[in-house]
């Protein structure tokens, strides 16, 4: 292609109209939404929660592979109503798809997207005839992927991909320069967050596998945060010095095309969880074991349930609420105090980001309108 053909006009995109007090956000994307976007997908407001006491041994933290497989099978069949597990997966994928599996490595070593769940996902995808070369396990940072080493648990040929070598803001080549969110949040010079090229240019479908984790800036990090902040550059800029703009940015990123249309399946890994200090889990001090996996296509509905799960666990430990906005709890930038004391926030959290995402059409927030089907294995 001649270089001149690259010179083309970008569509002018106005800044989004946002409620008073929220920062103006400008979405730039040439991608159109699918007829039925992956989020909220075919099952808005519907969540299948599969629990098994056998799934993880809390004394060792080790998961039982066979039990996890059974949980996955039951969850997918219940969600779709399909007679077989294969048919359940076939509702979302076919052999022509190029599938991204968005894992979460931020909680290494104690709470990352479970190898057993990721491996079973790959097994089901290859069972549909999708070549391993068309399956990408992805995160933003290669050093995190290297630590987690999913490749050791997956068939040879499955791609492990990251956009940047590490979180050093020097490596933008993995991001799409034409697909971004523009916002000036704190006076930063770099006002863009670009979507990963993998997402915009290669993948046709995405399976999102977040963990059940607390998060110091968003309250919880679930489906929305994992797929949004894990698919765009320069997102740490949204929360600093005690203030978080995640309230509107998380949902806005998740709603950007083509990410929204291509993220067709949510598998919330609650085998292990983190009730404080998230998204990190460098020690087991704040790790707990819900021993649950949730399935759905509606990220808002699952995250709405996650808010209660993390809140309940924090209460059980006498910790302040994720909704706490008290200045008395706030020790700005003092991560040491936060790590030592679950009654310390370093940023005023924005768990309301889940409800905000519902206003963008990403799913159902009202619990009365969310149907949860519980399955025990």
């Amino acid at each position, binding site marked *: 292609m001649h270089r001149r053909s690259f010179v083309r006009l*970008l569509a002018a995109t106005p800044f989004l109209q946002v409620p008073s007090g929220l920062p103006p956000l400008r979405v730039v994307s040439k991608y159109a939404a699918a007829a039925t976007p992956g989020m909220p997908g075919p099952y808005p407001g519907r969540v299948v929660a599969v629990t098994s006491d056998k799934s993880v041994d809390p004394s060792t933290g080790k998961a039982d592979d066979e039990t996890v497989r059974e949980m996955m099978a039951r969850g997918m069949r219940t969600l779709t109503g399909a007679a077989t597990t294969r048919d359940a997966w076939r509702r979302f994928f076919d052999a022509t798809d190029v599938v991204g599996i968005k894992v979460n490595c931020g909680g290494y070593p104690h709470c990352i997207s479970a190898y057993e769940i990721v491996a079973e996902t790959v097994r089901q995808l290859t069972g549909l005839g999708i070549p391993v070369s068309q399956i990408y396990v992805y995160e933003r940072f290669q050093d995190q992927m290297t630590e987690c080493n999913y490749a050791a648990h997956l068939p040879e040929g499955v791609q492990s991909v990251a956009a940047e070598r590490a979180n050093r803001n020097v490596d*933008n*080549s993995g991001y799409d320069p034409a697909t971004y969110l523009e916002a*000036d949040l704190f006076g930063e010079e770099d006002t863009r967050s670009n979507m990963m090229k993998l997402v915009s240019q290669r993948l046709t479908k995405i399976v999102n596998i977040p963990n059940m984790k607390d998060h110091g800036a968003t309250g919880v990090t679930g489906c929305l945060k994992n797929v949004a902040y894990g698919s765009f550059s320069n997102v740490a800029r949204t929360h600093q010095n005690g203030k978080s703009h995640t309230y509107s940015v998380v949902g806005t990123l998740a709603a950007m095309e083509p990410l929204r249309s291509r993220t067709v399946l949510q598998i919330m890994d609650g085998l292990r969880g983190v009730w404080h200090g998230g998204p990190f889990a460098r020690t087991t001090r704040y790790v707990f074991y819900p021993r649950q996996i949730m399935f759905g296509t509606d990220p808002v509905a699952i995250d709405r349930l996650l808010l209660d799960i993390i809140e309940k666990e924090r209460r059980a430990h006498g910790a302040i609420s994720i909704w706490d906005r008290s200045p008395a709890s706030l020790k700005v930038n003092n991560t040491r105090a936060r790590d030592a004391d679950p009654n310390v926030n370093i940023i005023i959290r924005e768990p309301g980001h889940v409800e905000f995402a519902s206003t963008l059409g990403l799913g159902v927030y009202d619990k009365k309108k969310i149907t949860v089907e519980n399955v025990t294995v």
Partner: protein
Amino acid sequence: MIPLLLLAALPCIEVMQGAEGRAALAAAGITRICAESDLAGREAAATPGITARAGVASPTRSPWVDANGWRFTRRPDARFVYDVPRGKAALAAAEAFAYGADAVLKIDPADARDVAAMLTFLEGLPAADLPAIADLAVVDDGSAMTGEVMNLLARRNLLFQVVRSPTPQFAINIAIGSAAYPRQEAADPSAFAQNIRRQLTDERRALRIYGSEVVIGRLTGDATRTRLHLLNYGGREIEGLRIRVRGAYRPGQAQVAGAGRITLEDQVVAEGATEFSLPRLTTYAVIDLEAAR
């Protein structure tokens, strides 16, 4: 010390550690040494790079960039001297060149090869004696406060021209101590620069840089062509830097120190500006752009 004399447009090099330093220069192929007269009466330039500044509040997570472009812009006829520690000499040479500064570099002998490579690169660049492009003017009262405002404007790539009195050429003329720009506002130069940015608006800026907060650009040009100098103060190579330059330009190439000619990628012209990606930025790059007809 061994003063070295290079081409007039390039910084002059002096190396510490006597005979050992001289040998290092010789081994690096640097043969033209400054005269003693070049060393007298020079102002100190800061060591360029990024530093952690404990106790200095920053409204963003941006690293603190130490750069001299604002000094060179403020006093284009002044003579400067860098006294730089190991690892900083090539950046200092590029910085002085980018601003056309008259500068001597006192370098660690260990940097001789890096500096020689940088000087060779700079010598190989096509000449481009173009006027600086600016978005606003700063009326220089000679004060330290105004200097710090210039420093913070430069760090944010808010391109300014130094003037003696307000000029109708620019919609924004910053005169510290005036009714529009009182001293108490300028006492926090970072916040002040941010306010200027809001006043100017990002859309109207001649230069935007995305993908890094440690790259400072200098833009020169006329109606037919523009030269963009990019200085990377971060010490790490940057990939995929995105640049937005006001105006419409034809597809171009970058000349990147240590990497040679690199084609700009993903170029688009829209909304009165040209955007492109620079695949690699080492310490320094020059991008020459021809105006689209």
